């Protein structure tokens, strides 16, 4: 479980996160939603230690993740983290297999053959069997995301962070990526945190949904009860998508009937 306690963060003189308190459960897809610029990415980057929190702390199964604290503990926690970045963040200089093997090369004592086998296993898990030798420039957007997921799970992480995993993807590929993350989360009991503003993802895989608005945690619920919310800001957020707007309309009509 990941616990966020009174987390605040200021960037460029603006308070981007204000007193966030949050518990993210293992084996579930914990979604953080909000408009662009609401602070989702800053929250995720602060959670994984890319930004230092101005106040508050993040606990990974009770272990504090602060830069000024025990350096070994920080490294230990980081090695239990897998992260899928918005653009994939694949290493251009390495082919697909080497990208997936990168964390194994760095931290594992496995033989070369075992590392290759593990990397191929991860690629097969994301439906990219046989893509080993492709260069990253030959990959489509969806394939890049899948390779990034394969790299993130290569070290069998306890915590998986996905920053807008389906941004820039077509609806069908987005659905596949969502289903893949959800399956992996359940299979391995990982604590998965997903930043998104895609309402399809919210409704389909949102085991817990946390709505961030102007740097504050505005609403908590899940993909099932989000349509029942009477919070003005979250309704406004949902109505931005034509599909959700219609869903919301039908949902209300059903309730009134």
């Amino acid at each position, binding site marked *: 479980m990941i616990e966020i306690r009174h987390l605040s963060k200021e960037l460029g003189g603006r308070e981007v996160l204000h007193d966030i308190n949050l518990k993210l459960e293992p084996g579930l897809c914990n979604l953080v939603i909000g408009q662009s610029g609401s602070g989702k990415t800053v929250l995720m980057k602060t959670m994984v*230690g890319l930004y230092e929190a101005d106040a508050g702390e993040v606990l990974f199964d009770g272990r504090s993740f602060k830069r000024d604290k025990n350096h070994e503990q920080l490294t230990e926690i*980081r*090695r239990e*983290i897998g*992260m899928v970045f918005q*653009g994939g*963040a694949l*290493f251009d200089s390495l082919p697909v297999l080497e990208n997936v093997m990168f964390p194994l*090369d*760095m931290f594992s004592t496995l033989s070369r053959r075992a590392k290759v086998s593990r990397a191929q296993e991860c690629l097969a898990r994301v439906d990219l069997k046989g893509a080993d030798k492709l260069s990253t420039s030959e990959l489509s957007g969806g394939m890049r995301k899948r390779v990034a997921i394969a790299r993130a799970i290569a070290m069998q992480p306890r915590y998986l962070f996905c920053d807008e995993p389906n941004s820039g993807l077509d609806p069908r590929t987005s659905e596949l990526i969502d289903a893949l993350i959800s399956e992996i989360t359940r299979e391995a009991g990982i604590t998965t945190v997903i930043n998104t503003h895609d309402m399809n993802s919210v409704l389909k895989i949102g085991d817990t949904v946390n709505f961030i608005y102007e740097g504050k945690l505005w609403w908590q619920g899940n993909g099932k009860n989000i349509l029942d919310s009477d919070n003005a800001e979250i309704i406004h957020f949902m109505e931005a998508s034509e599909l959700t707007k219609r869903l919301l309309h039908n949902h209300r009509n059903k309730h009134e009937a």
Partner: protein
Amino acid sequence: MIKAIGEYFLLLQRVFQSPGNRKLFWKQVLDEIYHLGMDSIPLVSLVSVFVGAAITIQLQINMDSPWIPLYSVGFAARKAIVLELAPTIIGLVLAGKIGSHIASQLGTMRVTEQIDAIEVMGMNSASYLILPKIIACMLFNPILIMLSIITALAGGWAAGVGIMHMSSFQFIYGLQSFPHNFDLVYAIAKTLVFAFFISSISSFYGYTVKGGALEVGKASTKAVVNSSIAIILSNLVMTQLLM
């Protein structure tokens, strides 16, 4: 400016920490030697041959006096090439080639979150990415400078004999006259300092890029300009100290 210098030293502090997996680290050094060093051989050779030839022609024209023996052209060409042309001029050429390569590579890695990906894995990205570049430059740039000296002297000989109709014997006699081994030590010492400045300053500008593609371009320019300034200033200081 002072802030940038402070940040540069803070980055160096991170760079000179344990890079993690040593086997992979040395593989990384070899890769950098190939990309930063071996790839520079054609450019260094080409520039050196032509500048060596131009120096010899200039010397011969300007030293055309019955009071100055002809072999002095070879001697003066050797001095100019070993002491300044090879280490300093080629240092500036390498600042352009290697500096822009390093800054744009690291800058692109920064804006596409590849550096963040390395950090999230629990690695020291500064040490993993920058230290191999510094080591590769400090190991291979002296070899490039030796190559530059040889090719520049060959260019000088070709111009002296082929264009200025000097005898080959006179030019080579001049090259061999009044040998001074310290000149080479001085050239190598300067090269090592320049190699450090080129690799570390360019890495600093690339690694600390914020923004997008436009900023990567700006960082690349800053890397080349500031590496060149560092080379010129340190050249003056080292000339005063060592000669």
